[in-house]
């Protein structure tokens, strides 16, 4: 390559320093929550806990993790995320395939139909009533079925399919492969980068979904982790304090418990990222240089 001048080096150092500083700044709030989760309550109350924990202990975290309500919510979230991601990725990949074949009749009309759903929706109350008619209220499928296919994700996969050389499919066909064989044995394995990326999108989406469960889940036994988290954290929100009775105030969770709940609910999904990282980089190249 070309020789690097002193100016380039200086710029590089500057850029790295800036990015590292930026990264650290973004990590700070996270670090503070983590240290609150493992610090003693008195230290939190007196504001001694910053980036590093004071009076290290794991009791609070253990208390949160061992609470039956937490465990139940956690399992539900894991289940919904796993099942939801599987179904979603399968259905999205299947839907994208025919749409990527420009020579199919009526394909542009179908595309319009899909795009339409991206732009318009029925509104909350009609949706709620519809879900109730379908007996989906208080049913965990409500978290998966209505949003099973994200049109945006489908378009990403579709354009990846389109970027694969057509000759590949033709030669498979000559070798006697039928449509499903082509899709599952040739196209999908080649699309792993984008599939993995979209799977991660879906997984994070399912894991973080708060709005859906809040609206459609009334049954306490079916609450997801995000609902539980929101409840625990918002319970002590200033705006909520004014209409609380003394009994409720006396029963309020201390700050440490709230921090520990946040940690226990976020760490699992954070752990997914490193394993997806290598696909992630390839997968988001969609739309850039082809060839």
């Amino acid at each position, binding site marked *: 390559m070309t020789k690097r001048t002193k100016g380039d080096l200086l710029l590089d150092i500057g850029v790295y320093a800036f990015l590292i500083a930026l990264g650290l700044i973004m990590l700070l709030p996270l670090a503070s929550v983590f240290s609150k989760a493992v610090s003693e309550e*008195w230290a939190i109350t007196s*504001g001694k806990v910053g980036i590093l924990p004071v009076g290290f202990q794991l009791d609070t975290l253990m208390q949160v993790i061992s609470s039956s309500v937490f465990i139940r919510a956690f399992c539900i979230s894991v289940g919904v995320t796993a099942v939801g991601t599987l179904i979603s990725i399968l259905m999205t990949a299947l839907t994208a395939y025919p749409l990527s074949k420009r020579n199919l009749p009526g394909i542009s009309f179908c595309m319009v139909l899909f795009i339409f759903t991206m732009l318009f929706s029925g509104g909350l109350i009609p949706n709620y009533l519809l879900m109730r008619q379908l007996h989906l209220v208080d049913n965990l499928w409500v978290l998966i079925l209505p949003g099973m296919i994200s049109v945006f994700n489908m378009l990403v996969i579709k354009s990846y399919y389109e970027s694969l050389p057509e000759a590949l499919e033709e030669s498979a066909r000559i070798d006697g492969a039928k449509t499903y064989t082509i899709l599952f044995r040739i196209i999908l394995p080649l699309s792993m980068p984008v599939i993995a990326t979209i799977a991660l999108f879906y997984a994070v989406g399912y894991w973080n979904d708060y709005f859906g469960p809040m609206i459609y889940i009334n049954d306490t036994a079916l609450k997801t982790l995000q609902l539980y988290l929101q409840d625990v954290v918002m319970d002590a929100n200033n705006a909520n304090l004014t209409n609380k009775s003394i009994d409720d105030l006396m029963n309020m969770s201390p700050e440490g418990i709230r921090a520990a709940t946040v940690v226990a609910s976020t760490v699992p999904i954070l752990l997914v990222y490193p394993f997806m990282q290598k696909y992630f980089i390839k997968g988001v190249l969609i739309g850039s240089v082809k060839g």
Partner: protein
Amino acid sequence: MIMINRKWLSLVLCAGLAASMAGCGSSGNTNKEGAAGGTAEQTAGAQKEGGSKPELKTLNIWSKDDYNTYTLAKVVEEQTGYKVKYEMLPADKAMDKLNLLISSAEPYDVITITGEKAAYTDYAKMGALVDLTPLIDKYGENIKASISPESFEAMKVDGKIYAIPNRTSEFVGSSLMIRTDWLDKLGLKMPATLEELTAVLKAFKEKDPGGNGDKGAPLSIDGALATMVNVTGAFGIATGWSEVDGKLVAAPLQPGFKEYLSYAADLYKQGLLDKEFAVNKDATLKEKFTSGRVGVIPLPWYDIPGIADALTKNFPDAKYAYVPALKGKDGQAGLGMSGGFDRLTFIPKSSKHPEDAIKWINAKLDKDTFKLIAIGEEGKHFTYKDGVYSPILPLFTDERGLASNYLTGIDEKLYPVYWQARVQKDPRLFAGFTFLNSEVPAEYRISDPLALAPSLPEYSKNNASLNQMINDFAVKVIVGEESTDAVAAFIEKYNAAGGEASSKEVNEWYASVKK
């Protein structure tokens, strides 16, 4: 996404609610689930079942533990014979969710919410609730015995009772907390008047018993509560409204308001009040007090244990106590008391078993059952001696700590006595509570005249924004951005923003009960 959705939520809910209100009236008869269908049908249904008790579906406010698995669920079931499925509202945006559930006519049999009379009144007015008056007459023997006519009066909407209230016992919740070891160090005694308070604060600043140098301040308050408890009492405005010559007058309209502001502004100017107070939050305040940077803060008694733990950890010799009711120049003093209702229980029209719901509520108010639910069994959960109920820990907290969530209506005579067992969970908590509520002379404990008022639409519409206005103005005056002369102009703005309308409405109600 979520942010957008939330905004949508409230918007759409409002629209939806309006639409469903319109729908409610007409669709009542056609709706198969028989919302308004009428009690006759339900009675028939109950008889057909041969008196077997149906499972009730209830909706309650948020609770740390699952209602269905907490020990009390079983106790209630055994005592009343009703199987109950409990559901709860979220901790955040509870009223939005409730609106959604009510407008889509989810078939709950019993709904309990916090004491928000405004929401309750709206539901009653739009016809979403079952009129309880005849049901209580027929099945509510214990309900009638436990709940005072006064409380029922506050529940009336157009002359009918639609809810069963849990009345809160009246007590002082908060006052100024002072570091007494600082007082001892400087050889000062506990301040009893405003002048003495100023003198103590001055000494705290000059002699610096906390050893903070310039970093600390003698007194700090929460920026959202710029009207300091206890100090306001010395100016005759301990509660938001108080009686003057037989009429209720809001705090800003009283001369004490201006005097209070000039006193607080003076403290600020002298550097006796924390310079950063305007941005203080509840947590910052506690932080400053427990880390020894501040010697006096307003503190509710239920926060004492946490504060005490942190304080002793940081300063093993630290001592603290409540400042007694401070006297102003005319010997005026007062600590405001809370009161009113902390839970309202109603039966929505969509209920499938309104009669059983009332029977269930009634059964829970049976004297023995009620005691069992509220504080448990003697010798197991509590001990009883000399008229005082003391908890047995930790079982009491584990099995009865969340009891108030299971109470739908309370025995108004006995519950305040039982209730103190909760305060005795921690001796430091109890000490703070008893100081404010028994040692402070009764005449200085000022009760809220609006505690038992029914829902007043103008008042509840404007109350929150008016309070915000008062607070913002108070902060501005205290930090010297506005002079106290601006009070007159402020009162004009206050009246225009709904203060006058509220005052008219509040006084119309007050005149009607005084008769």
